[in-house]
């Protein structure tokens, strides 16, 4: 018997369908239910954790030996980042024997002249790990220990969960695998965690000789005839196991992203072997190699966000001359980074915001360790270690602006993370989560 639809039935069903459509959440392609509520003002953001405990005196204050060794020789040894004349005497930070030859500037105009510098920012921790945690979490917690995932969500997780960014849109390029650095790409927070992690490489290990020994000779499988059935069988095996266990917890790279990362690795091993890696003009320490690979990550993936961690200046614990050289090279690395973004990566040129913040400062008073030049070394534990700076440059950042001074601190280290969230459109969600340090706000609100 044929069922007829009455006018009343039709109106009822149509009304229910319309109500369902109105109230059902929108499922975005990323799998998220709702679009982020913030406004994205930058297509790409690169954050540099700079660079292992930096004193204000030798960096943003440009005092060279004048405020550390009792020798009256001021000057700017970071001339890619800051404006100002280089020291004229007692040059030890360059290349060659005794470091007599300063590395030429890469950028014709300093980043300070192109952007904004917060000259006196307050760090949340006098230590590296606490400082790095404050940069990735926007907070630092007293219960956060080494060999432990961050307790609160990281910027990678906020971006991926609330902004819908893919795994290869969020990268952390680490300076190595020490000091729990590989653990900083995601937290152990139950609402976030591995599935929202950023991708991570410590390229000086991954693409080193030992990395090549285990990873460079990978067999290439046919994606459809070989890999597809292999993954299918693996899925069956996993389903059998997951019926009784809760295995899982890997980064949420899609299969396409995994193949892309494997292709990137293969290309990097080939470049290293062929000597065609895009290196900075001077590449004589780990930070410079790390930055070279960070640039390669940018070229390949063009991610929305990348954090790169430099750390060689930590030699200051026992070698002040080495510290000056490392500081000079960290500046060279940032100059290389910015130059490559503007000249070699058209998809990012003019659309990228750069933020550089030291994770912590360094002491006012030296320890007793003398280096080859009889200069005293510096640890990081006192209030001077909580004095840092933040440099911003990019299309929406005012040029030539300076905010704060030695007697007028403005901003927190955790503001850097909130600024990234602001630039990439997830600041309201990060604030609503309520897990950042008190007073943390976007630096864009303080311009």
């Amino acid at each position, binding site marked *: 018997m044929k069922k007829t639809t009455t006018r009343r039935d039709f109106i009822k069903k149509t009304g229910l369908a319309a109500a369902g459509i109105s109230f059902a959440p929108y499922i975005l392609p990323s799998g998220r239910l709702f679009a982020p509520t913030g406004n994205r003002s930058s297509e790409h953001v690169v954050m540099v954790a700079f660079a292992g405990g930096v004193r204000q005196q030798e960096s943003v204050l440009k005092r060279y030996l004048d405020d550390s060794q009792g020798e009256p020789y001021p000057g700017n040894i970071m001339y890619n980042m800051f404006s100002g004349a280089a020291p004229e005497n007692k040059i030890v930070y360059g290349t060659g024997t005794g470091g007599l030859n300063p590395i030429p500037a890469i950028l014709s105009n300093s980043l300070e002249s192109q952007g904004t510098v917060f000259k006196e920012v307050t760090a949340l921790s006098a230590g590296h790990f606490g400082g790095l945690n404050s940069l990735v979490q926007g907070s630092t917690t007293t219960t956060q220990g080494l060999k432990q995932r961050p307790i609160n969500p990281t910027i990678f997780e906020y971006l991926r969960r609330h902004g819908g960014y893919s*795994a290869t849109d969020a990268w*952390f390029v*680490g300076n*190595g*695998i020490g000091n729990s650095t*590989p653990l900083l*790409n995601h937290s152990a927070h139950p609402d976030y965690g591995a599935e929202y*992690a*950023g*991708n*991570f*490489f*410590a*390229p000086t*290990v*991954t693409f080193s000789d*030992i*990395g090549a*020994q*285990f*990873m*460079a*000779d*990978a*067999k*290439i*499988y*046919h994606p459809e*005839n*070989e890999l597809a*059935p*292999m*993954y*299918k*069988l*693996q899925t*069956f*095996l*996993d389903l*059998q*196991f*997951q019926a*009784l*266990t809760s*295995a*899982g917890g*890997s*980064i949420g*790279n899609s299969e396409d992203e*995994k193949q892309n*990362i*494997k292709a990137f*690795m293969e290309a990097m091993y080939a470049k290293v072997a062929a000597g065609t890696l895009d290196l900075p003009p001077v590449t004589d320490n780990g930070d410079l190699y790390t930055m070279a690979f960070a640039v390669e990550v940018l070229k390949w993936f063009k991610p929305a966000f990348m954090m790169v961690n430099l750390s060689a200046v930590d030699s200051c614990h026992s070698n002040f001359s080495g510290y000056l050289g490392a500081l000079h090279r960290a500046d060279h690395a940032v100059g290389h980074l910015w130059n490559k973004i503007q000249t070699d990566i058209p998809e990012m040129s003019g659309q990228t915001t750069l933020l550089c913040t030291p994770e912590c400062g360094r002491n006012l008073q030296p320890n007793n360790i003398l280096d080859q030049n009889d200069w005293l070394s510096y640890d990081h534990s006192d209030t001077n270690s909580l004095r840092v700076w933040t440099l911003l440059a990019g299309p929406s950042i005012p040029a030539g602006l300076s905010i704060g001074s030695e007697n007028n601190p403005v901003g927190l280290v955790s503001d850097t993370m909130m600024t990234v969230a602001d630039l990439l459109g997830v600041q309201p969600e990060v604030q609503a989560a309520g897990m950042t340090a008190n007073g943390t706000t976007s630096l864009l609100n303080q311009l």
Partner: protein
Amino acid sequence: MNMLVSSRTQTGYMTLIVLLLLAAGCRPEPDVSFELQGLEVTPGFATKDRLKTNEQWVAIVHTNLFQAGMPANDLYNAARVFESIGDQSIAREVLLSNFFNQPDLELQTREEMLDDLDAFIDETYLRFYTRFPTQAERTFVREFVLNNPGMTPELVYMSFSLSDEYRYY
């Protein structure tokens, strides 16, 4: 006197009795099977709840594939390289494909695998999971291998090595 038995005779009787008892006590136990088939007991996957470290995973997969342990220094370095890669599933896959590219790794051909597929499946489950497959698993894997001409022992081993169960013990 006739009633008196010499001590030598007594000793002889005692020895005879002991020998008879020993002979009776040493008889082999009869093989009683009650018509049941023997069953080898292996642990099931329900007991695997501890995640292997990277070092353990590399050491075990090397042993499972090459039937030989990895030198300690190599093991240490491999674990370091694993730490330097955020997505561990990618690290595992790339390492395995490097292993499969090594000339000293001897694997069966697909034809050899198909000669006795059930035995191959049992052997693979034992090698990687230290257990036998359930009947449902054996049936699925058998049909899957038969219906996918590209599935070689190498790819089967890769599936098992990359699986979640293999990450636990």
